[in-house]
């Protein structure tokens, strides 16, 4: 027996989403007199009930395994992160070392005339007192133990 399609849709809707009180009453009035729709309601209710009667079990140690894997990944990620930050700091320190040296050289060159220094002396001074110490400081970032880097 093929019932009015809109009642079947209404029945479906009543199981899946909200229906208004009026629609609910209309549906119940219809079901009372329609065996086809009554059976349709029973089958739908049975299907949904059946769907809730599945119990899946994951492998007993699966959660523990996942936790272990995540702990390992977290440690690796942190290590990579620290390494990245160290290299970034090194790059910044290195560039500052060269840029700073250029600036110091410019200033010292201006002071060289009143101080009676020649170009070679200025270059040596900048090299010994600025470029080398700052370059060593940048290298220290890479060589020092992690706790002394002030980054990690």
């Amino acid at each position: 027996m093929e019932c009015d399609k809109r009642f079947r849709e209404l029945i479906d809707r009543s199981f899946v989403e909200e229906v208004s009180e009026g629609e609910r009453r209309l549906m119940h009035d219809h079901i009372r007199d329609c065996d086809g729709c009554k059976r349709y309601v029973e089958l739908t209710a049975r299907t949904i009930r059946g769907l809730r009667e599945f119990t899946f079990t994951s492998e007993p140690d699966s959660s523990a395994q996942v936790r272990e894997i995540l702990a390992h990944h977290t440690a690796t990620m942190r290590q990579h992160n620290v390494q990245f930050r160290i290299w970034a700091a090194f790059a910044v320190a290195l560039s500052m070392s060269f840029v700073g040296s250029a600036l110091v050289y410019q200033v010292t060159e201006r002071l060289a005339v009143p101080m009676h220094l020649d170009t070679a002396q200025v270059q040596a001074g900048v090299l010994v007192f600025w470029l080398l110490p700052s370059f060593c400081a940048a290298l220290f970032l890479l060589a020092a133990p992690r706790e002394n880097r002030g980054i990690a």
Partner: protein
Amino acid sequence: MSALPMTLNITAETETAKIARGLRESDTELLADLVERSQRRLVRYLLYLIGRQDYAEDLAQETWIRVLQRGSQYDGRQRFDLWLFAIARNLAIDYLRKKRKAVQTASSPDDRDEILLVPSSGPSPFEAAAQSEDAIRLAGQLQILPPLYREALLLRFQEDLSLAEIAQVLGAPLTTVTSRIYRGLAALRSAFEEGGDSHGV
């Protein structure tokens, strides 16, 4: 009267905000707690998507790694489990695509054999999990039902998500979600109907 729902709402917000902060900081304790709470549901969801217990477990592991890697993308504005399911869904789709591609483009017989080594017969995961006569009858239908419909049915009737929440996980409009649920229900109903062949999807 309205104070209680508001308090609950604030509690829920705090919970997701806490998770978001923990994920940003790769907090291992929080992750362990999330795994403990959601692993079983995640495996079940993946099982409904790909229909294989072993692959579901593997994909669940991958999902958690993805959660760790992309933790900063979770902003705490939606429920964590919805975000988790959405990640799992993307991974499952990638997996199924790769599998299909491997079958279609494999040129040498060896490749095909390798795929055929994966057992596809035997009891379905649904039969093993069925806890009642009715569930056993549904298990067969579930196994042959397209994953799209299985997924919608699981989220609605086992996870008890609202239609709007399902739409969030699926990234699909509400009309699509409802249509998938109705079609899935129609297909499963046939397990109880005489003849068992009406309302097929």
